[in-house]
């Protein structure tokens, strides 16, 4: 199994190559420069794993939620590569990848992923470690104001993501739990790759043109009101 993964939904930009049990990855916190570096990152991890594009079995991408431009970049790059090589695509939630990073980092098995969504909102999702050794969604992913978060968590749940940097106190007060957290973790391509590896074995892949972003926030335009009309 050989799988290329990319993740550009947050400030971090990353690419990874999964080759059976081995992972080659590269990441960089590079706000607004993802477009300049993502393809060379892909080329670097392929070179590290001595793999050519034609040897890949699939390509995975962080489908969001996250910065709109970032998730679209991941989707458009994925579509381009997959169409050119006629590869299947495995979409992976960026919140799930973030939860997976918490397991890799501190062996957390219950995680509350929270990404700052700007405009006084967060993208949030609760995950638990499953028998496939990956993080699995509990309930649903949401975009919500931090003081409206109604996840039921126990004390062992671990918080991760940029949402905790901005709203740790509000989140803890709202849920009535003083959770430990790490606000410096990002979703990374290596975590996307690990999740995608399992999804792919479970036949959860799509075609190149179905590699689409998940924004969660959909009320992005207001219809004009009170325009003078004669």
């Amino acid at each position, binding site marked *: 199994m050989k799988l290329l993964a990319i993740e550009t939904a947050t400030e971090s930009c990353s690419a990874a190559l999964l080759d059976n049990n081995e992972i080659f990855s590269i990441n960089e916190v590079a706000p607004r420069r993802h477009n300049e570096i993502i393809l060379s990152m892909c080329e670097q991890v392929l070179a590290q794993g001595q793999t050519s594009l034609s040897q890949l079995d699939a390509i995975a991408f962080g489908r969001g939620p996250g910065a*709109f431009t970032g998730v679209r970049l991941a989707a458009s*790059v994925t579509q381009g*590569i997959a*169409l050119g090589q006629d590869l299947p695509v495995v979409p992976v939630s960026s919140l799930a990848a973030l939860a997976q990073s918490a397991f890799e980092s501190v062996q957390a098995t219950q995680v509350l992923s929270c990404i700052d969504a700007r405009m006084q909102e967060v993208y949030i999702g609760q995950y638990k470690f499953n028998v496939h050794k990956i993080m699995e969604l509990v309930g649903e992913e949401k975009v919500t104001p931090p003081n409206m978060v109604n996840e039921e968590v126990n004390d062992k749940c671990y918080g991760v993501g940029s949402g905790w940097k901005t709203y740790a106190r509000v989140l803890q007060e709202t849920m009535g739990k003083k959770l430990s957290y790490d606000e410096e973790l990002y979703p990374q391509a290596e975590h996307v790759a690990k999740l995608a590896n399992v999804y792919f074995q479970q036949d959860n892949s799509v075609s190149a043109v179905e590699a689409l972003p998940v924004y969660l926030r959909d009320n992005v*335009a207001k*219809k*004009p009101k009170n325009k003078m*009309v*004669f």
Partner: protein
Amino acid sequence: MRVLGIESSCDETAVAIISDSDGLLANKLYSQIELHSPYGGVVPELASRDHIRKLGPLVKEALHDANLELAKDIDAIAYTSGPGLMGALMVGAGFARSLAWSINKPAISIHHMEAHLLAPLIESISPEFPYVALLVSGGHTLLVKIDAIGSYRILGESIDDAVGEAFDKTAQLLGLPYPGGPQIQQLAKHGNAKRFNFPRPMTDRPGLDFSFSGLKTHVLNTLKELQGNQQHSIDEQTRADVACAFEDAVVDTLRIKSVRALEQSNAETLVVAGGVGANKKLRQQLKEKLAKKGMEVFYPAPEFCTDNAAMVAQLGLLHLQNIAQGENPQGLQIKVRPRWSLESI
């Protein structure tokens, strides 16, 4: 040699395939007009979201139409990298650059306006250099002298609203839907051209620049005055008369400046491109006035006039001839240039 072209700079998603020996092999376009119509103009975030949904399927359709395979039959990917909406451009650029990398072929960055200026070359009967191009659309109002491929001089441009924008805003004042051009043209047919006389902005002084925001304000003030007099909503005939006066003012202005541009630059051919170029009054007036002066006006086919990918693929083909085998001029970066002057090419 075959080039696949991708256009996504504003509210049209387009894909085309062109061959140096067999011409245009596929030309696909999806317009977002209906998506943006309720908002009275293009909403950038919605445009980007739609491009990513439509681009892949259009590429597949284009390949199917031309009966070609990507990796085997396409020699380069050309894409619009500017000017235009940042997010919209990024979808096309990310997709195109990655696709080119995936099939190990060059990616060619295309200037959207240059592609418009050279669009007439797609067709079998095309104008000879030098020519002057009048580019009139929702985003642009430009007069450009084209001496040869790669040699462009901007003679004049709008200092405020683009002419298509003026149509849209005026249509909105008259309660007409977006886009305003075809709507105003339709309403103006029943108008009395003699009832109102609107200004022809900046025609009473030398120079080739345009200004349309004052004209829009003139429409607004006229309507306000009429409503004040009538104490009720303005009747259909009056609205048609206003639409007619507005259209006449725009058409006259574009015609006066185009003739002036031709005379000043010693060119005898005018090429009209962009969506507003579809306006019937404009076409008729330019044809008549230029014929009297022994000049010629050339209209690309409507599908090459508005935003399209055939013009992108075609310019890509021209650029490809200057790219050495195995070279990739853009490197591995995905780059867009939302603001990009034509003269800096």
